[in-house]
Protein backbone atom coordinates (compact mmCIF):
# COMPACT_ATOMS: atom_id res chain seq x y z
CA UNK A 1 0.00 0.00 0.00
CA UNK A 2 1.44 3.32 -0.96
CA UNK A 3 1.99 6.09 1.52
CA UNK A 4 -0.61 8.26 -0.14
CA UNK A 5 -3.26 5.58 0.11
CA UNK A 6 -2.44 5.01 3.74
CA UNK A 7 -2.66 8.71 4.43
CA UNK A 8 -6.00 8.74 2.63
CA UNK A 9 -7.31 5.92 4.75
CA UNK A 10 -6.07 7.57 7.90
CA UNK A 11 -7.83 10.78 6.91
CA UNK A 12 -11.08 8.89 6.31
CA UNK A 13 -10.89 7.16 9.65
CA UNK A 14 -10.07 10.32 11.49
CA UNK A 15 -12.11 12.75 9.42
CA UNK A 16 -13.31 14.45 12.62
CA UNK A 17 -9.95 15.99 13.35
CA UNK A 18 -9.68 17.44 9.83
CA UNK A 19 -13.25 18.61 10.00
CA UNK A 20 -12.46 20.56 13.16
CA UNK A 21 -9.03 21.86 12.21
CA UNK A 22 -9.52 23.00 8.63
CA UNK A 23 -12.30 25.55 9.31
CA UNK A 24 -10.37 26.91 12.29
CA UNK A 25 -7.22 27.31 10.17
CA UNK A 26 -9.03 28.78 7.17
CA UNK A 27 -10.97 31.23 9.32
CA UNK A 28 -7.70 32.17 11.01
CA UNK A 29 -5.98 32.95 7.72
CA UNK A 30 -8.95 34.89 6.36
CA UNK A 31 -9.25 36.97 9.53
CA UNK A 32 -5.49 37.54 9.71
CA UNK A 33 -5.49 38.79 6.12
CA UNK A 34 -8.69 40.83 5.99
CA UNK A 35 -10.11 41.28 9.49
CA UNK A 36 -10.05 44.51 11.46
CA UNK A 37 -8.03 44.52 14.67
CA UNK A 38 -11.24 44.02 16.66
CA UNK A 39 -12.07 40.86 14.72
CA UNK A 40 -8.50 39.62 15.06
CA UNK A 41 -8.76 40.12 18.81
CA UNK A 42 -12.07 38.30 19.01
CA UNK A 43 -10.70 35.40 16.99
CA UNK A 44 -7.59 35.20 19.14
CA UNK A 45 -9.82 35.11 22.19
CA UNK A 46 -11.91 32.43 20.53
CA UNK A 47 -8.84 30.27 19.97
CA UNK A 48 -7.75 30.67 23.59
CA UNK A 49 -11.29 29.86 24.80
CA UNK A 50 -11.22 26.79 22.59
CA UNK A 51 -8.06 25.63 24.34
CA UNK A 52 -9.73 26.03 27.73
CA UNK A 53 -12.99 24.38 26.67
CA UNK A 54 -11.14 21.42 25.18
CA UNK A 55 -9.19 21.13 28.41
CA UNK A 56 -12.46 20.87 30.31
CA UNK A 57 -13.90 18.52 27.71
CA UNK A 58 -11.09 16.01 28.14
CA UNK A 59 -12.19 15.45 31.71
CA UNK A 60 -15.87 16.31 31.75
CA UNK A 61 -16.86 14.93 28.36
CA UNK A 62 -15.16 11.61 28.80
CA UNK A 63 -15.88 11.02 32.49
CA UNK A 64 -19.35 12.56 32.65
CA UNK A 65 -18.50 14.41 35.87
CA UNK A 66 -19.45 18.06 35.80
CA UNK A 67 -16.31 19.95 36.76
CA UNK A 68 -16.26 23.44 38.24
CA UNK A 69 -12.60 23.32 39.11
CA UNK A 70 -10.99 23.78 35.73
CA UNK A 71 -11.16 27.54 35.60
CA UNK A 72 -9.01 27.33 38.73
CA UNK A 73 -6.38 25.40 36.77
CA UNK A 74 -6.58 28.06 34.08
CA UNK A 75 -5.87 30.56 36.85
CA UNK A 76 -2.92 28.58 38.18
CA UNK A 77 -1.48 28.37 34.68
CA UNK A 78 -2.00 32.08 34.11
CA UNK A 79 -0.37 33.13 37.39
CA UNK A 80 2.57 30.74 37.08
CA UNK A 81 3.27 31.70 33.47
CA UNK A 82 2.76 35.36 34.22
CA UNK A 83 5.05 35.38 37.24
CA UNK A 84 7.78 33.46 35.41
CA UNK A 85 7.84 35.55 32.26
CA UNK A 86 7.33 39.06 33.64
CA UNK A 87 10.49 41.08 34.15
CA UNK A 88 11.74 41.55 37.75
CA UNK A 89 11.39 45.32 37.51
CA UNK A 90 7.70 45.21 36.61
CA UNK A 91 7.00 42.63 39.31
CA UNK A 92 8.87 44.68 41.89
CA UNK A 93 6.63 47.63 41.13
CA UNK A 94 3.36 45.81 40.54
CA UNK A 95 3.44 43.24 43.31
CA UNK A 96 4.99 44.94 46.34
CA UNK A 97 4.72 41.93 48.67
CA UNK A 98 6.10 39.27 46.36
CA UNK A 99 8.70 36.85 47.71
CA UNK A 100 12.15 38.11 46.61
CA UNK A 101 13.16 34.87 44.89
CA UNK A 102 10.02 35.02 42.75
CA UNK A 103 10.75 38.62 41.80
CA UNK A 104 14.21 37.67 40.51
CA UNK A 105 12.94 34.71 38.49
CA UNK A 106 12.50 35.26 34.78
CA UNK A 107 12.40 32.75 31.94
CA UNK A 108 11.31 33.04 28.29
CA UNK A 109 7.59 32.97 27.52
CA UNK A 110 7.21 29.51 26.01
CA UNK A 111 8.87 27.60 28.87
CA UNK A 112 6.88 29.80 31.26
CA UNK A 113 3.62 28.71 29.63
CA UNK A 114 4.75 25.10 29.77
CA UNK A 115 5.58 25.52 33.47
CA UNK A 116 2.10 26.92 34.04
CA UNK A 117 0.63 23.76 32.59
CA UNK A 118 2.95 21.55 34.60
CA UNK A 119 2.18 23.27 37.89
CA UNK A 120 -1.56 23.05 37.21
CA UNK A 121 -1.15 19.35 36.44
CA UNK A 122 0.83 18.84 39.65
CA UNK A 123 -1.86 20.51 41.72
CA UNK A 124 -4.45 18.35 39.97
CA UNK A 125 -2.35 15.26 40.65
CA UNK A 126 -2.37 16.04 44.37
CA UNK A 127 -6.00 17.03 44.84
CA UNK A 128 -7.30 14.57 42.26
CA UNK A 129 -6.26 11.65 44.38
CA UNK A 130 -9.10 12.02 46.90
CA UNK A 131 -11.50 13.81 44.57
CA UNK A 132 -11.72 11.19 41.84
CA UNK A 133 -13.18 8.67 44.25
CA UNK A 134 -16.32 10.70 44.65
CA UNK A 135 -19.13 10.34 42.17
CA UNK A 136 -22.43 11.96 41.40
CA UNK A 137 -23.63 14.88 43.47
CA UNK A 138 -20.91 14.55 46.08
CA UNK A 139 -18.30 14.72 43.33
CA UNK A 140 -19.84 17.80 41.76
CA UNK A 141 -20.06 19.62 45.08
CA UNK A 142 -16.51 18.82 46.14
CA UNK A 143 -15.18 19.99 42.76
CA UNK A 144 -17.20 23.15 43.30
CA UNK A 145 -15.72 23.56 46.79
CA UNK A 146 -12.25 23.06 45.31
CA UNK A 147 -12.79 26.02 43.00
CA UNK A 148 -13.65 28.12 46.04
CA UNK A 149 -10.50 26.97 47.83
CA UNK A 150 -8.50 28.04 44.77
CA UNK A 151 -10.26 31.37 44.69
CA UNK A 152 -9.66 32.06 48.37
CA UNK A 153 -5.98 31.24 47.99
CA UNK A 154 -5.62 33.42 44.88
CA UNK A 155 -7.27 36.40 46.54
CA UNK A 156 -5.41 36.04 49.84
CA UNK A 157 -1.86 34.99 48.96
CA UNK A 158 -0.65 38.42 48.03
CA UNK A 159 3.02 37.38 48.20
CA UNK A 160 2.41 35.59 44.93
CA UNK A 161 -0.74 36.76 43.20
CA UNK A 162 -0.93 40.37 44.36
CA UNK A 163 -4.09 39.42 46.27
CA UNK A 164 -7.42 40.62 44.94
CA UNK A 165 -5.62 43.41 43.06
CA UNK A 166 -4.71 43.23 39.41
CA UNK A 167 -1.54 41.45 38.38
CA UNK A 168 -0.20 43.45 35.45
CA UNK A 169 2.78 43.80 33.16
CA UNK A 170 2.78 40.32 31.64
CA UNK A 171 4.58 40.60 28.27
CA UNK A 172 2.30 40.39 25.28
CA UNK A 173 3.13 37.28 23.33
CA UNK A 174 -0.08 35.63 22.18
CA UNK A 175 -0.86 36.70 18.66
CA UNK A 176 -3.49 35.13 16.46
CA UNK A 177 -0.92 32.71 15.10
CA UNK A 178 0.17 31.56 18.56
CA UNK A 179 -3.41 31.14 19.75
CA UNK A 180 -4.34 29.30 16.55
CA UNK A 181 -1.44 26.89 16.95
CA UNK A 182 -2.44 26.39 20.57
CA UNK A 183 -6.02 25.65 19.58
CA UNK A 184 -4.90 23.14 16.93
CA UNK A 185 -2.67 21.46 19.46
CA UNK A 186 -5.55 21.30 21.91
CA UNK A 187 -7.86 19.76 19.30
CA UNK A 188 -5.24 17.14 18.49
CA UNK A 189 -4.62 16.40 22.17
CA UNK A 190 -8.31 16.12 23.01
CA UNK A 191 -8.86 13.87 20.00
CA UNK A 192 -5.87 11.72 20.86
CA UNK A 193 -7.09 11.36 24.43
CA UNK A 194 -10.62 10.49 23.41
CA UNK A 195 -9.42 7.73 21.09
CA UNK A 196 -6.70 6.45 23.41
CA UNK A 197 -7.09 3.45 25.68
CA UNK A 198 -7.62 5.62 28.76
CA UNK A 199 -10.19 7.72 26.95
CA UNK A 200 -12.07 4.64 25.84
CA UNK A 201 -12.04 3.19 29.35
CA UNK A 202 -13.19 6.45 30.78
CA UNK A 203 -16.05 6.75 28.31
CA UNK A 204 -17.08 3.23 29.19
CA UNK A 205 -17.15 4.21 32.85
CA UNK A 206 -19.19 7.30 32.01
CA UNK A 207 -21.87 5.25 30.31
CA UNK A 208 -22.05 2.56 32.97
CA UNK A 209 -19.74 2.72 35.92
CA UNK A 210 -20.53 -0.72 37.28
CA UNK A 211 -20.33 -2.51 33.96
CA UNK A 212 -17.00 -0.83 33.27
CA UNK A 213 -15.64 -1.84 36.66
CA UNK A 214 -16.88 -5.38 36.09
CA UNK A 215 -14.87 -5.67 32.88
CA UNK A 216 -11.72 -4.80 34.78
CA UNK A 217 -11.46 -1.06 34.22
CA UNK A 218 -10.00 0.86 37.12
CA UNK A 219 -12.51 3.71 37.05
CA UNK A 220 -10.74 5.85 39.63
CA UNK A 221 -7.41 5.61 37.82
CA UNK A 222 -8.96 6.40 34.44
CA UNK A 223 -10.62 9.47 35.92
CA UNK A 224 -7.44 10.48 37.69
CA UNK A 225 -5.40 10.35 34.48
CA UNK A 226 -7.99 12.39 32.63
CA UNK A 227 -8.14 14.92 35.45
CA UNK A 228 -4.39 15.49 35.38
CA UNK A 229 -4.19 15.70 31.59
CA UNK A 230 -7.10 18.11 31.38
CA UNK A 231 -5.56 20.25 34.13
CA UNK A 232 -2.35 20.35 32.08
CA UNK A 233 -4.32 21.56 29.06
CA UNK A 234 -6.24 24.10 31.10
CA UNK A 235 -3.01 25.36 32.67
CA UNK A 236 -1.34 25.81 29.29
CA UNK A 237 -4.45 27.59 28.05
CA UNK A 238 -4.24 29.85 31.09
CA UNK A 239 -0.63 30.73 30.27
CA UNK A 240 -1.52 31.55 26.68
CA UNK A 241 -4.46 33.61 27.91
CA UNK A 242 -2.26 35.51 30.38
CA UNK A 243 0.10 36.56 27.58
CA UNK A 244 -2.84 37.75 25.54
CA UNK A 245 -4.70 39.72 28.19
CA UNK A 246 -1.50 40.85 30.03
CA UNK A 247 -3.27 41.95 33.22
CA UNK A 248 -5.75 40.02 35.30
CA UNK A 249 -7.07 39.44 38.81
CA UNK A 250 -8.52 36.40 40.66
CA UNK A 251 -12.09 37.28 39.60
CA UNK A 252 -11.13 36.13 36.08
CA UNK A 253 -10.93 32.59 37.41
CA UNK A 254 -14.21 32.20 39.21
CA UNK A 255 -17.77 31.11 38.77
CA UNK A 256 -18.89 33.53 36.08
CA UNK A 257 -15.94 32.57 33.88
CA UNK A 258 -16.55 28.91 34.56
CA UNK A 259 -20.14 29.43 33.58
CA UNK A 260 -19.00 30.78 30.22
CA UNK A 261 -16.75 27.75 29.68
CA UNK A 262 -19.49 25.37 30.74
CA UNK A 263 -22.05 27.05 28.54
CA UNK A 264 -19.70 26.68 25.56
CA UNK A 265 -19.23 23.02 26.31
CA UNK A 266 -22.82 22.19 27.18
CA UNK A 267 -24.46 24.10 24.35
CA UNK A 268 -22.21 22.34 21.84
CA UNK A 269 -22.37 18.98 23.54
CA UNK A 270 -19.82 17.96 26.14
CA UNK A 271 -19.62 14.37 24.94
CA UNK A 272 -17.66 15.15 21.79
CA UNK A 273 -14.81 17.32 20.58
CA UNK A 274 -16.95 18.49 17.69
CA UNK A 275 -19.45 19.64 20.31
CA UNK A 276 -16.80 21.63 22.15
CA UNK A 277 -15.67 23.34 18.94
CA UNK A 278 -19.21 24.10 17.74
CA UNK A 279 -20.28 25.29 21.19
CA UNK A 280 -17.30 27.61 21.56
CA UNK A 281 -18.01 29.07 18.13
CA UNK A 282 -21.71 29.61 18.78
CA UNK A 283 -21.25 31.07 22.25
CA UNK A 284 -18.40 33.37 21.19
CA UNK A 285 -20.49 34.78 18.34
CA UNK A 286 -23.60 35.15 20.51
CA UNK A 287 -21.68 36.83 23.33
CA UNK A 288 -19.94 39.29 21.04
CA UNK A 289 -23.21 40.23 19.37
CA UNK A 290 -24.94 40.69 22.72
CA UNK A 291 -22.05 42.74 24.05
CA UNK A 292 -22.26 44.99 20.99
CA UNK A 293 -25.99 45.34 21.57
CA UNK A 294 -25.48 46.13 25.24
CA UNK A 295 -22.91 48.83 24.54
CA UNK A 296 -25.05 50.26 21.73
CA UNK A 297 -27.98 50.57 24.12
CA UNK A 298 -25.80 52.15 26.77
CA UNK A 299 -24.17 54.60 24.35
CA UNK A 300 -27.45 55.65 22.74
CA UNK A 301 -28.75 56.84 26.13
CA UNK A 302 -32.29 55.82 25.22
CA UNK A 303 -32.72 54.30 28.67
CA UNK A 304 -32.42 56.23 31.89
CA UNK A 305 -30.15 53.55 33.41
CA UNK A 306 -27.11 51.54 32.37
CA UNK A 307 -27.78 48.06 31.08
CA UNK A 308 -25.78 45.49 33.02
CA UNK A 309 -25.87 41.74 32.75
CA UNK A 310 -27.96 41.52 29.59
CA UNK A 311 -25.37 39.25 27.96
CA UNK A 312 -25.34 36.80 30.85
CA UNK A 313 -29.11 36.88 31.10
CA UNK A 314 -29.64 36.00 27.45
CA UNK A 315 -26.90 33.37 27.58
CA UNK A 316 -28.59 31.69 30.53
CA UNK A 317 -31.93 31.59 28.72
CA UNK A 318 -30.24 30.34 25.54
CA UNK A 319 -28.59 27.58 27.51
CA UNK A 320 -31.83 26.37 29.06
CA UNK A 321 -33.54 26.46 25.67
CA UNK A 322 -30.76 24.42 24.04
CA UNK A 323 -30.86 21.90 26.89
CA UNK A 324 -34.63 21.48 26.58
CA UNK A 325 -34.35 21.12 22.83
CA UNK A 326 -31.27 18.89 22.79
CA UNK A 327 -30.13 17.75 26.23
CA UNK A 328 -26.88 16.35 24.84
CA UNK A 329 -25.97 19.68 23.23
CA UNK A 330 -26.27 20.78 19.60
CA UNK A 331 -23.84 18.17 18.31
CA UNK A 332 -24.49 15.51 20.93
CA UNK A 333 -22.18 12.73 22.00
CA UNK A 334 -21.16 11.55 18.54
CA UNK A 335 -18.31 13.17 16.66
CA UNK A 336 -19.00 14.83 13.37
CA UNK A 337 -17.46 12.82 10.54
CA UNK A 338 -16.99 13.35 6.82
CA UNK A 339 -19.31 13.12 4.92
CA UNK A 340 -21.43 15.11 7.32
CA UNK A 341 -24.70 13.32 6.66
CA UNK A 342 -24.46 9.63 5.94
CA UNK A 343 -27.61 8.02 4.66
CA UNK A 344 -26.85 4.53 5.88
CA UNK A 345 -26.17 5.11 9.56
CA UNK A 346 -29.10 5.82 11.75
CA UNK A 347 -28.79 8.91 13.83
CA UNK A 348 -27.95 7.82 17.33
CA UNK A 349 -29.47 10.01 19.96
CA UNK A 350 -26.82 9.99 22.60
CA UNK A 351 -28.15 11.56 25.76
CA UNK A 352 -25.06 11.26 27.89
Amino acid at each position, binding site marked *: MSVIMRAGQWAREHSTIMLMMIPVIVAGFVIQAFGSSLVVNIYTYFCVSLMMVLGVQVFMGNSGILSWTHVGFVGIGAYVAGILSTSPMVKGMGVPNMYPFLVQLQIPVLPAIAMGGIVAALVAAIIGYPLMRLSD*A*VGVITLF*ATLIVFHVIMT*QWDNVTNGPRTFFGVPEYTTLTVALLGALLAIAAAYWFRESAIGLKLRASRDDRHAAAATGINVVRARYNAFVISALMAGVAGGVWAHFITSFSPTSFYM*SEMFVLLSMLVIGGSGSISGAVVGTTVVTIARELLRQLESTINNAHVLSFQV*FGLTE*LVMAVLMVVVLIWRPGGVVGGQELTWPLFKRTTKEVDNAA
Partner: protein
Amino acid sequence: MINLEFVINTLSLGSLYALLSVGLVLVYGILKLVNFAYGEYIMVSGYAIYLSGAVLHMPWYVTMVIAVLAAVLVSFLTEYAAIRPVRTKSADAMLVTSFAVSVFLQNVVLLTISPRSRAVPLPSFFSKTVTIAGATTPLRNLLVIGTTFVVLIGLSLLMKKTVLGMAMRAAADKFTTTRLMGVPANFVISAAFIISGFLAGVGGIFWVGRSASVDPLTGAAPLLIAFIATVMGGMNSPIGAVVGGFVYGLLFNVLSITLPASMISYRDAFMFAIVILFLLFRPEGIVRRGYTEERVG
Protein backbone atom coordinates in the same frame (compact mmCIF):
# COMPACT_ATOMS: atom_id res chain seq x y z
CA MET B 1 -13.27 29.43 75.39
CA ILE B 2 -16.35 27.26 75.65
CA ASN B 3 -18.77 29.56 77.40
CA LEU B 4 -22.46 30.21 77.00
CA GLU B 5 -21.87 32.88 74.38
CA PHE B 6 -19.98 30.42 72.21
CA VAL B 7 -22.75 27.86 72.65
CA ILE B 8 -25.48 30.30 71.66
CA ASN B 9 -23.48 31.53 68.68
CA THR B 10 -22.83 28.01 67.49
CA LEU B 11 -26.44 26.96 68.00
CA SER B 12 -27.82 29.95 66.12
CA LEU B 13 -25.34 29.62 63.27
CA GLY B 14 -25.89 25.88 63.17
CA SER B 15 -29.66 26.13 63.14
CA LEU B 16 -29.60 28.69 60.32
CA TYR B 17 -27.33 26.40 58.32
CA ALA B 18 -29.50 23.41 59.15
CA LEU B 19 -32.59 25.24 57.90
CA LEU B 20 -30.87 26.10 54.62
CA SER B 21 -29.44 22.61 54.17
CA VAL B 22 -32.74 20.82 54.66
CA GLY B 23 -34.27 22.85 51.84
CA LEU B 24 -31.52 21.72 49.50
CA VAL B 25 -31.75 18.07 50.53
CA LEU B 26 -35.51 17.81 50.04
CA VAL B 27 -35.11 18.42 46.33
CA TYR B 28 -31.96 16.37 46.08
CA GLY B 29 -33.62 13.40 47.75
CA ILE B 30 -36.27 13.10 45.08
CA LEU B 31 -34.68 14.44 41.91
CA LYS B 32 -31.01 13.73 42.68
CA LEU B 33 -30.52 17.32 41.59
CA VAL B 34 -28.06 19.62 43.31
CA ASN B 35 -30.03 22.80 42.89
CA PHE B 36 -27.61 25.60 42.10
CA ALA B 37 -30.47 28.09 41.97
CA TYR B 38 -31.21 27.50 45.65
CA GLY B 39 -29.06 30.40 46.82
CA GLU B 40 -31.03 32.73 44.58
CA TYR B 41 -34.24 32.00 46.51
CA ILE B 42 -32.51 33.47 49.54
CA MET B 43 -31.51 36.50 47.51
CA VAL B 44 -35.07 36.83 46.20
CA SER B 45 -36.47 36.78 49.71
CA GLY B 46 -34.00 39.51 50.67
CA TYR B 47 -35.07 41.66 47.74
CA ALA B 48 -38.71 41.00 48.55
CA ILE B 49 -38.17 42.49 52.01
CA TYR B 50 -36.34 45.42 50.44
CA LEU B 51 -39.06 46.10 47.87
CA SER B 52 -42.01 45.69 50.19
CA GLY B 53 -40.39 47.36 53.20
CA ALA B 54 -38.16 50.13 51.88
CA VAL B 55 -40.02 50.96 48.67
CA LEU B 56 -43.66 50.23 49.54
CA HIS B 57 -43.31 50.86 53.31
CA MET B 58 -45.26 47.87 54.49
CA PRO B 59 -45.13 46.79 58.14
CA TRP B 60 -42.40 44.30 58.99
CA TYR B 61 -44.62 41.23 59.44
CA VAL B 62 -46.11 41.75 55.96
CA THR B 63 -42.65 42.07 54.43
CA MET B 64 -41.63 38.77 55.97
CA VAL B 65 -44.67 36.95 54.66
CA ILE B 66 -44.00 38.43 51.24
CA ALA B 67 -40.36 37.36 51.45
CA VAL B 68 -41.28 33.75 52.12
CA LEU B 69 -43.99 33.77 49.45
CA ALA B 70 -41.60 35.23 46.89
CA ALA B 71 -39.04 32.51 47.56
CA VAL B 72 -41.74 29.83 47.30
CA LEU B 73 -43.01 31.27 44.04
CA VAL B 74 -39.57 31.52 42.44
CA SER B 75 -38.72 28.02 43.58
CA PHE B 76 -41.93 26.65 42.12
CA LEU B 77 -41.40 28.51 38.84
CA THR B 78 -37.83 27.20 38.59
CA GLU B 79 -39.14 23.69 38.65
CA TYR B 80 -42.08 24.35 36.40
CA ALA B 81 -40.35 26.33 33.67
CA ALA B 82 -36.78 25.08 33.63
CA ILE B 83 -36.27 21.81 35.47
CA ARG B 84 -39.39 19.96 34.37
CA PRO B 85 -38.64 20.04 30.61
CA VAL B 86 -35.13 18.63 31.04
CA ARG B 87 -35.88 16.37 33.99
CA THR B 88 -36.28 13.14 32.11
CA LYS B 89 -33.34 13.72 29.81
CA SER B 90 -30.02 13.87 31.57
CA ALA B 91 -28.66 14.55 35.02
CA ASP B 92 -26.02 16.94 33.73
CA ALA B 93 -28.59 18.89 31.74
CA MET B 94 -30.62 19.34 34.92
CA LEU B 95 -27.59 20.48 36.89
CA VAL B 96 -26.49 22.98 34.28
CA THR B 97 -30.07 24.19 33.89
CA SER B 98 -30.28 24.96 37.59
CA PHE B 99 -27.04 26.91 37.33
CA ALA B 100 -28.39 28.79 34.31
CA VAL B 101 -31.49 29.67 36.36
CA SER B 102 -29.21 31.00 39.07
CA VAL B 103 -27.32 33.19 36.59
CA PHE B 104 -30.61 34.29 35.11
CA LEU B 105 -32.08 35.38 38.45
CA GLN B 106 -28.90 37.20 39.44
CA ASN B 107 -28.86 39.14 36.21
CA VAL B 108 -32.56 39.95 36.34
CA VAL B 109 -31.92 41.65 39.69
CA LEU B 110 -28.76 43.25 38.36
CA LEU B 111 -30.61 44.62 35.37
CA THR B 112 -33.85 45.72 37.03
CA ILE B 113 -32.81 46.87 40.51
CA SER B 114 -29.12 47.65 40.82
CA PRO B 115 -25.71 46.00 40.87
CA ARG B 116 -25.05 47.72 44.21
CA SER B 117 -26.28 46.39 47.51
CA ARG B 118 -29.51 47.65 49.04
CA ALA B 119 -30.28 48.15 52.71
CA VAL B 120 -32.99 45.85 53.98
CA PRO B 121 -35.39 47.28 56.56
CA LEU B 122 -35.77 44.95 59.54
CA PRO B 123 -37.70 45.36 62.78
CA SER B 124 -35.60 46.92 65.52
CA PHE B 125 -35.96 44.00 67.93
CA PHE B 126 -33.91 41.93 65.50
CA SER B 127 -30.67 43.55 66.50
CA LYS B 128 -31.56 44.31 70.14
CA THR B 129 -29.17 42.54 72.47
CA VAL B 130 -30.29 40.47 75.41
CA THR B 131 -28.32 39.03 78.30
CA ILE B 132 -28.91 35.48 79.47
CA ALA B 133 -26.88 34.16 82.38
CA GLY B 134 -24.11 36.61 81.65
CA ALA B 135 -23.94 35.97 77.92
CA THR B 136 -24.84 38.90 75.66
CA THR B 137 -26.26 38.11 72.26
CA PRO B 138 -28.44 39.77 69.63
CA LEU B 139 -32.07 38.71 69.90
CA ARG B 140 -32.09 37.43 66.31
CA ASN B 141 -29.70 34.67 67.33
CA LEU B 142 -32.31 33.36 69.74
CA LEU B 143 -35.09 33.95 67.21
CA VAL B 144 -33.35 31.83 64.60
CA ILE B 145 -32.90 28.97 67.05
CA GLY B 146 -36.60 29.11 67.95
CA THR B 147 -37.77 29.44 64.36
CA THR B 148 -35.63 26.56 63.17
CA PHE B 149 -36.91 24.42 66.01
CA VAL B 150 -40.55 25.13 65.11
CA VAL B 151 -40.03 24.77 61.35
CA LEU B 152 -38.13 21.50 61.65
CA ILE B 153 -40.77 20.03 64.00
CA GLY B 154 -43.47 21.11 61.55
CA LEU B 155 -41.54 19.60 58.67
CA SER B 156 -40.99 16.29 60.40
CA LEU B 157 -44.70 16.12 61.27
CA LEU B 158 -45.48 16.80 57.62
CA MET B 159 -43.08 14.10 56.48
CA LYS B 160 -44.23 11.54 59.03
CA LYS B 161 -47.97 12.08 59.40
CA THR B 162 -49.37 13.25 56.09
CA VAL B 163 -49.90 11.43 52.81
CA LEU B 164 -47.83 14.03 51.00
CA GLY B 165 -44.95 13.51 53.38
CA MET B 166 -45.15 9.79 53.01
CA ALA B 167 -45.18 10.11 49.23
CA MET B 168 -42.14 12.38 49.37
CA ARG B 169 -40.22 10.03 51.59
CA ALA B 170 -41.11 7.11 49.38
CA ALA B 171 -40.08 9.07 46.29
CA ALA B 172 -36.73 9.84 47.87
CA ASP B 173 -36.20 6.13 48.41
CA LYS B 174 -37.38 4.63 45.13
CA PHE B 175 -38.88 7.09 42.74
CA THR B 176 -39.97 4.65 40.06
CA THR B 177 -41.74 2.36 42.49
CA THR B 178 -43.46 5.33 44.08
CA ARG B 179 -44.82 6.34 40.71
CA LEU B 180 -46.06 2.82 40.11
CA MET B 181 -47.99 3.11 43.38
CA GLY B 182 -49.95 5.95 41.82
CA VAL B 183 -48.13 8.99 43.14
CA PRO B 184 -47.96 11.69 40.43
CA ALA B 185 -44.33 12.58 39.78
CA ASN B 186 -44.88 16.23 38.94
CA PHE B 187 -46.92 16.75 42.08
CA VAL B 188 -44.31 15.34 44.45
CA ILE B 189 -41.51 17.24 42.76
CA SER B 190 -43.45 20.51 42.81
CA ALA B 191 -44.23 19.96 46.48
CA ALA B 192 -40.54 19.39 47.20
CA PHE B 193 -39.59 22.60 45.42
CA ILE B 194 -42.31 24.56 47.23
CA ILE B 195 -41.16 23.35 50.65
CA SER B 196 -37.57 23.95 49.61
CA GLY B 197 -38.49 27.51 48.64
CA PHE B 198 -40.30 27.99 51.95
CA LEU B 199 -37.22 26.95 53.92
CA ALA B 200 -35.01 29.17 51.77
CA GLY B 201 -37.40 32.07 52.36
CA VAL B 202 -37.43 31.64 56.13
CA GLY B 203 -33.68 31.08 56.22
CA GLY B 204 -33.24 34.04 53.86
CA ILE B 205 -34.87 36.45 56.32
CA PHE B 206 -32.31 35.54 58.95
CA TRP B 207 -29.44 35.37 56.50
CA VAL B 208 -30.18 38.85 55.19
CA GLY B 209 -30.91 39.94 58.77
CA ARG B 210 -27.28 39.40 59.75
CA SER B 211 -25.91 42.06 57.42
CA ALA B 212 -29.19 43.98 56.85
CA SER B 213 -28.33 44.36 53.18
CA VAL B 214 -28.83 42.43 49.98
CA ASP B 215 -27.05 42.42 46.63
CA PRO B 216 -27.31 40.26 43.50
CA LEU B 217 -24.60 37.91 44.74
CA THR B 218 -26.08 37.39 48.22
CA GLY B 219 -27.13 33.86 47.33
CA ALA B 220 -23.66 32.47 46.70
CA ALA B 221 -22.47 32.14 50.29
CA PRO B 222 -25.54 30.42 51.78
CA LEU B 223 -25.73 28.11 48.77
CA LEU B 224 -22.21 27.00 49.38
CA ILE B 225 -22.79 26.50 53.08
CA ALA B 226 -25.86 24.40 52.34
CA PHE B 227 -23.85 22.36 49.83
CA ILE B 228 -21.05 21.63 52.20
CA ALA B 229 -23.29 21.03 55.16
CA THR B 230 -25.41 18.52 53.27
CA VAL B 231 -22.43 16.72 51.80
CA MET B 232 -20.89 16.49 55.24
CA GLY B 233 -24.08 15.40 56.97
CA GLY B 234 -25.21 12.97 54.30
CA MET B 235 -27.12 13.79 51.12
CA ASN B 236 -29.71 11.10 51.50
CA SER B 237 -31.73 12.29 54.45
CA PRO B 238 -33.01 15.55 55.95
CA ILE B 239 -31.58 14.41 59.31
CA GLY B 240 -28.16 14.29 57.71
CA ALA B 241 -28.66 17.85 56.48
CA VAL B 242 -29.58 19.06 59.98
CA VAL B 243 -26.58 17.32 61.51
CA GLY B 244 -24.35 18.70 58.76
CA GLY B 245 -25.66 22.23 59.34
CA PHE B 246 -24.82 22.12 63.04
CA VAL B 247 -21.42 20.53 62.44
CA TYR B 248 -20.62 23.21 59.89
CA GLY B 249 -21.63 25.93 62.33
CA LEU B 250 -19.45 24.40 65.03
CA LEU B 251 -16.48 23.99 62.69
CA PHE B 252 -16.84 27.58 61.49
CA ASN B 253 -16.90 29.00 65.02
CA VAL B 254 -14.03 26.83 66.22
CA LEU B 255 -11.88 27.88 63.25
CA SER B 256 -12.79 31.53 63.80
CA ILE B 257 -11.50 31.31 67.36
CA THR B 258 -8.49 29.07 66.94
CA LEU B 259 -6.95 30.30 63.68
CA PRO B 260 -4.25 32.95 64.19
CA ALA B 261 -5.17 36.42 62.95
CA SER B 262 -2.86 36.19 59.94
CA MET B 263 -4.60 33.03 58.74
CA ILE B 264 -8.20 34.08 59.34
CA SER B 265 -8.70 35.17 55.74
CA TYR B 266 -7.96 31.59 54.70
CA ARG B 267 -10.76 30.28 56.91
CA ASP B 268 -12.98 29.22 54.02
CA ALA B 269 -10.10 27.42 52.35
CA PHE B 270 -9.47 25.53 55.59
CA MET B 271 -13.14 24.68 55.96
CA PHE B 272 -13.40 23.19 52.51
CA ALA B 273 -10.10 21.40 52.79
CA ILE B 274 -11.32 19.76 56.00
CA VAL B 275 -14.58 18.81 54.33
CA ILE B 276 -12.83 17.29 51.31
CA LEU B 277 -10.50 15.32 53.56
CA PHE B 278 -13.44 14.16 55.61
CA LEU B 279 -15.26 12.96 52.50
CA LEU B 280 -12.22 10.97 51.48
CA PHE B 281 -12.80 8.74 54.48
CA ARG B 282 -16.54 8.83 54.61
CA PRO B 283 -18.02 9.79 51.24
CA GLU B 284 -21.57 9.04 52.34
CA GLY B 285 -21.51 11.68 55.07
CA ILE B 286 -22.05 11.51 58.81
CA VAL B 287 -25.55 10.06 58.69
CA ARG B 288 -25.50 6.85 56.72
CA ARG B 289 -28.65 5.90 54.87
CA GLY B 290 -29.65 3.47 52.16
CA TYR B 291 -27.41 4.55 49.32
CA THR B 292 -29.32 4.77 46.06
CA GLU B 293 -27.94 6.20 42.86
CA GLU B 294 -31.12 5.97 40.91
CA ARG B 295 -32.41 9.12 39.35
CA VAL B 296 -35.58 10.17 37.63
CA GLY B 297 -35.84 8.97 34.08
